[in-house]
């Protein structure tokens, strides 16, 4: 989240889209209800289903799955064409005035640089026009037709309310009614927030979707303000922590992974350290060498020296364009290119797209280690033929699977110390409530034991890649069971000479004199102690920032980009509601997202970006500098804007023998998968209370579709896609409205996740149905908006 849970109470308008917080974040949802009660905030819910959030909303707008960019693009057009943008904010805090290169253009669904043969973009034209000093040229008047603002206005002029209605399936009136409320925040004194979750990330164009939301919030002047922002509601207790620590496709602190073309540390730093694009840009990522050097010092300790590039050579390198995200490595596993796999805190058979492909891939391994609280579908994959009954027709019998499977019992969250990082970016320290049962051990002990055992084997037998293992700093008091306090202190960072904790990332150096395991967490455990364990409830600003409660990254800042809550001169846009203020010599209030004593005109407000201002236009993403509506990879209709470039042209679609895509003639209905309040992912089907509250797998069907098919509530139905099928009772409901799209009726079929072939309550895995299609930027699979058929069994 740019802001945080408590901050939602400060808003005037809540747009919930691509999320369902009343169901999936019911505790955090209290702040939405507080805003409704205390500030008379309006809640707008845009979703294919009339869900529990819609039930308490002021305005509900139905929308076809996968058309969110069209809706948000429509809001951008609505705000601009109705003069509802916060133009003072736009001028000061965004790249609206930057001039684009003359060769940048967009036509027929493709941006300039499209190579139809290679199906790839050359991004050269997606840049600003630069002056002699390498800075972007600007036109403060916004008159130049090549300035970002004008280009954006042109780009979204196609997204009229009527076009939105044609694509999304709502009516133009429904759209306009919601747009009027959302865009009412485009002025000083009123603010709106956007809450989203996996309903936005589970698309083949998900990162662009969130980019569109950020653009809308910038146009309305809602970024950096209390009650504003673009707020991702994270789905697991520590998923934010795993993202920050680089458990996915990054090094800790969002540093990029080394690649084959960057064999030296110098070449890595050159490629990953941005240069400022405006004279007043602080360009904080210019400090990348300090963060990266300190990380290498944390990894390799005294062995990391300037002479040996601080051990950079010991880090593994990805191939030049290699993608090692989820869909790609399972594809490799399916092609028998992997030998072993350790699955920690994940249940790939249940979570991954196209379950049967997951099962086939795991059967190609020599060994699989699963570290879990329960025997999961992944641990029991070898028995899926028997347990999963009829859903895996191609799959082999247990006796022909040669994979050696080892299930290590792991302690659950309440059985170990450590920190949780929530959606608000708060690092909250917790203590074990009970010891782990039986032989179960905490994850870090399991990792340490594996590490020490592998190192001992290398010591004895040697082998390829020995040096990184041997030089890895492992100076914990108990090497087989490092305390998480020690790890947390290491993550915060130390002065190499004195061994003292650094006070924060500003103290990090690129000469090897400091170490730091994750620069964004630096400041969480200083010489003052473990700030994550704080529970102070003081609220000096009255805005619910609670600066002494836990510790928030970065630098205990509660609202990101808070400099933008002020105008160019440092005056709050809303003086009754100011998170930071310039008192003439320094900034007071929240930790400023700015140099604390820099006068308001010294830097641009967006200190992390080379532009110094926020970006409507960016060359960072794969499919274009402006978000464009693309249909899901499986769609019932052609793209109404450009039928010949219907889906995202650069989204990866896997093509293994287990992958196939469906067409609307055979699979006419749009399916979405989602979570229910009553369960947590694939865990609580093992737990008594969750099992009672929702014991049964079910399929939500629109009344009209059920009538056409002669299906009554409770009848067993089969839902099938080009990949597989599920079966269960139908929940027939008017809450799944039929939508009119391009003159035809489109029905959604809703399928909750949570069941599987092991557990206290069981049911089919919904990912039997889903395609191996991914967002090109994040590698997230497309679970919302794929095609299925429905039959009565």
């Amino acid at each position, binding site marked *: 989240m740019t802001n945080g849970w408590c901050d939602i109470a400060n808003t005037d308008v809540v747009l919930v889209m691509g999320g369902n917080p009343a169901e999936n974040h019911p505790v955090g*949802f209290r702040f939405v209800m507080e805003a409704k009660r205390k500030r008379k905030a309006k809640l707008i819910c845009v979703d294919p289903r009339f869900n529990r959030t819609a039930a308490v909303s002021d305005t509900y707008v139905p929308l076809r799955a996968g058309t969110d960019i069209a809706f948000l693009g429509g809001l951008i057009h609505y705000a601009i064409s109705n003069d509802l943008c916060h133009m003072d904010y736009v001028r000061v805090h965004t790249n609206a005035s930057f001039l684009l290169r003359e060769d940048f253009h967009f036509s027929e669904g493709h941006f300039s640089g499209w190579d139809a043969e290679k199906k790839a973009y050359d991004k050269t034209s997606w840049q600003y026009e630069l002056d002699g000093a390498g800075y972007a040229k600007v036109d403060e008047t916004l008159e130049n037709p090549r300035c970002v603002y004008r280009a954006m206005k042109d780009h979204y002029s196609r997204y009229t309310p009527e076009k939105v209605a044609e694509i999304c399936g709502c009516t133009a009136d429904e759209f306009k009614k919601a747009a009027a409320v959302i865009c009412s925040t485009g002025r000083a004194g009123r603010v709106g927030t956007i809450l989203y979750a996996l309903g936005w990330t589970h698309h083949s164009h998900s990162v662009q979707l969130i980019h569109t939301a950020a653009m809308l919030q910038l146009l309305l002047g809602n970024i950096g303000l209390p009650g504003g922002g673009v707020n991702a509601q994270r789905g697991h207790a520590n998923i934010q922590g795993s993202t920050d620590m680089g458990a996915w496709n990054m090094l800790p602190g969002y540093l990029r992974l080394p690649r084959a073309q960057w064999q030296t540390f110098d070449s890595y730093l050159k490629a990953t350290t941005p240069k400022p694009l405006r004279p007043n840009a602080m360009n904080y990522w210019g400090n990348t060498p300090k963060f990266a050097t300190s990380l290498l010092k944390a990894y390799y300790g005294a062995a990391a020296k300037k002479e040996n590039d601080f051990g950079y050579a010991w880090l593994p390198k990805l191939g030049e364009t290699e993608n090692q995200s989820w869909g790609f490595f399972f594809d490799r596993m399916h092609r028998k290119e992997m030998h072993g796999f350790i699955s920690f805190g994940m249940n790939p058979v249940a979570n991954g797209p196209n379950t049967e492909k997951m099962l086939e891939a795991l059967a190609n391994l020599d060994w699989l280690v699963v570290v879990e609280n329960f025997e999961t579908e992944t641990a029991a994959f070898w028995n899926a033929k028997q347990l999963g009954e009829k859903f895996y027709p191609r799959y082999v019998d247990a006796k022909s699977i040669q994979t050696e499977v080892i299930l290590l019992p792991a302690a659950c969250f309440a059985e170990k110390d450590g920190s949780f990082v929530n959606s608000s970016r708060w690092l909250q320290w917790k203590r074990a409530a009970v010891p782990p049962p039986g032989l179960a051990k905490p994850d870090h002990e399991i990792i340490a034991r594996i590490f020490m055992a592998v190192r001992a084997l290398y010591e004895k037998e040697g082998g390829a890649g020995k040096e990184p293992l041997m030089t890895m700093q492992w100076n914990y008091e108990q090497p087989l069971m490092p305390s998480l306090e020690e790890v947390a202190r290491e993550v915060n960072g130390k002065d190499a000479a004195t061994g003292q904790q650094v006070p924060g990332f500003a103290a990090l150096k690129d000469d090897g004199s400091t170490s730091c395991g994750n620069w964004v967490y630096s400041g969480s455990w200083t010489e003052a102690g473990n700030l994550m364990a704080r529970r102070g409830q003081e609220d000096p600003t009255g805005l619910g920032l609670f600066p002494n409660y836990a510790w928030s990254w970065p630098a205990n800042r509660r609202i990101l980009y808070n400099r933008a809550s002020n105008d160019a001169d440092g005056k709050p846009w809303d003086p009754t509601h100011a998170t930071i203020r310039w008192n003439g010599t320094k900034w007071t209030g929240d930790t400023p997202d700015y140099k604390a004593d820099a006068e308001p005109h010294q830097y641009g407000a967006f200190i992390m970006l080379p532009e110094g201002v926020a970006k409507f236009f960016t060359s960072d993403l794969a499919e274009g500098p402006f978000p464009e509506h693309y249909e899901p990879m499986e769609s019932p209709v052609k793209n109404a804007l450009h039928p010949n470039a219907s889906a995202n042209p650069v989204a990866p679609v896997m093509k293994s023998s287990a992958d196939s895509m469906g067409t609307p003639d055979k699979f006419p209905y749009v399916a979405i998968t989602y979570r229910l309040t009553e369960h947590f992912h694939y865990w609580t089907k093992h737990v008594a209370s969750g099992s009672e509250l929702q014991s049964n797998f079910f399929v939500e069907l629109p009344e009209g579709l059920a009538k056409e098919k002669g299906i009554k509530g409770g009848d067993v139905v089969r839902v099938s896609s080009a990949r597989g099928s599920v079966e269960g009772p139908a929940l027939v409901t008017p809450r799944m409205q039929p939508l009119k799209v391009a003159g035809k009726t489109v029905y959604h079929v809703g399928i909750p996740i949570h069941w599987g072939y092991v557990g206290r309550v069981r049911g089919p895995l919904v990912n039997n149905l889903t395609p191996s299609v991914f967002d090109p930027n994040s590698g997230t699979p497309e679970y919302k908006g794929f095609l299925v058929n429905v039959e009565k069994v």
Partner: protein
Amino acid sequence: MPATTVAKLIDTSLCIGCKACEVACQEWNEQEFTLGVFNNTYQTLPDLAPNFWNLIKFNEQVEDGANSWLMAKYQCMHCADPGCLKACPAPGAIVQLPNGIVDFRQENCIGCGYCITGCPFDVPRLSPTTKKVYKCSLCSDRVGAGMTPACIRTCPTNCLTFGSRTDLVELAAQRTEELKADGFQDAGVYDGPGVGGTNVLYVLKHASAPEKYGLPKDPRIPWTVSLWKGPLKWVANAAFLGTAVGALLHYLKFGPKETHDDEVH
């Protein structure tokens, strides 16, 4: 000083149907978790059960083309004039505490089921296992120890409030005004008029149609029951006789009393 009458306010405009109150109720009352029953809704069970005293009803409606999904928690209403108590022939099986809580004392219950007939809200449930009747006690044990009922303690959206009836009547009126100002002209308080008021109060956006929430529009104690404790009060007043007859009936029907804690699910 007379005990303050306590109450629970359910502001349905803030209910998100998360069922946290259901879990809290089950856990505090040490009910065994069993399995839900699918009935084409999101409800855990189609109705209350002897071992399930707090149920959120999910009411789906379409009016003028617009969906609504009204969620309302359903449990004992703790009536000022309890039909169950009026109907009960077994002394001490149903008591109305000085704080207004209507509590069932299973050790005195004879399993006759008259309370079920007497309840205008269809709340008490007879257990086929223990042959006793069960319902929400408004956590009389917790309240007696100065704590808030479990459901209210766990509610994440402040849909549920606990306090003195006087205060909550005032809060309910204030919320009604807020909802009216928000455009819900039909907003109002549901306070069981036919039963002298209930110590469970609801704020409804559609107060003229409580049945949309699964609440009876005009709750009344059946006339047969009113008669039993009204003009025919002398029958009930023969307490000793009542107990003796009741105990006899219970013995004949179910056999000797057995106390197995594990039977009380």
